[in-house]
């Protein structure tokens, strides 16, 4: 009788562990940030089996960002931009926004220069990656690391 009452009132080790596990599960369910693995998966989907090589892509983005709501980004790719060699697609990815994708730009032989500028949102200090697909099917990539002082998506 006394033993059973004790087990009801005092939290035992097993019960605590189960409760802790539930709490961790709840935290994992929150759709707070894309993780590095989500970014890798999005990049893998973009590459479709081809391994990207480092180089030829330049990411022009400020290393220290005051306001994550609007961050100027310019992507440049070294390519001749002729009918034989031109950039077909440029994918831009992030590590810690709620979604790993930022944008996919479609260029062609008529683009003149492989250069696109836009403004993006960043929810945290993180790594940005760009992958360019050339007309011969080769993939080139570059990354940029930056610090965000005031992240996007925090205000209501």
């Amino acid at each position, binding site marked *: 009788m006394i033993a059973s009452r004790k087990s009801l009132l005092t939290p035992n080790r097993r019960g605590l562990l189960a409760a802790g596990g539930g709490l961790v599960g709840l935290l994992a369910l929150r759709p707070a940030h894309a993780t590095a693995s989500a970014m890798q998966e999005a990049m893998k989907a973009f590459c479709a089996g081809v391994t990207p090589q480092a180089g030829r892509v330049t990411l022009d983005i400020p290393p220290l960002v005051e306001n994550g709501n609007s961050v100027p980004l310019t992507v440049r790719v070294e390519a001749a931009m002729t009918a034989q060699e031109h950039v077909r697609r440029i994918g831009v990815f992030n590590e810690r926004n*709620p979604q790993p994708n930022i944008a996919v730009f479609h260029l062609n032989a008529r683009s003149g220069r492989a250069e696109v500028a836009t403004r993006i949102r960043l929810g945290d200090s993180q790594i940005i990656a760009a992958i360019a697909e050339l007309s011969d099917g080769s993939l080139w990539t570059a990354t940029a690391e930056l610090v965000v002082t005031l992240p996007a998506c925090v205000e209501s």
Partner: protein
Amino acid sequence: MGRALINVPPKARKGQVIDIKALVSHPMETGYRTGPDGALVPRDIINRFLVTWNGQEIFSADLFPAIAANPYFAFTTIAQESGTITFRWFDDKGNAQVETAAIVVE
């Protein structure tokens, strides 16, 4: 949708690389923010931007919530023939905004 600002040179030489800039006013609501009542504000973004020159695609972009409000794009193209450059922005609700710019190629 809202107001669009487009920067296209009025004249160009044939074969010249020209700069094109386009901005449209749009909140690009991410779907991750909460409103005053604490509920999530539903996502409403422009998910595709398409630019054609006399009907031929010269630039397009697939967009995600990580694009800042009032999406801005700057890109280049080679001037080939006189005509109309058409800019189209497609949003989540299925609406499209269309703007055009005329260019003379000499």
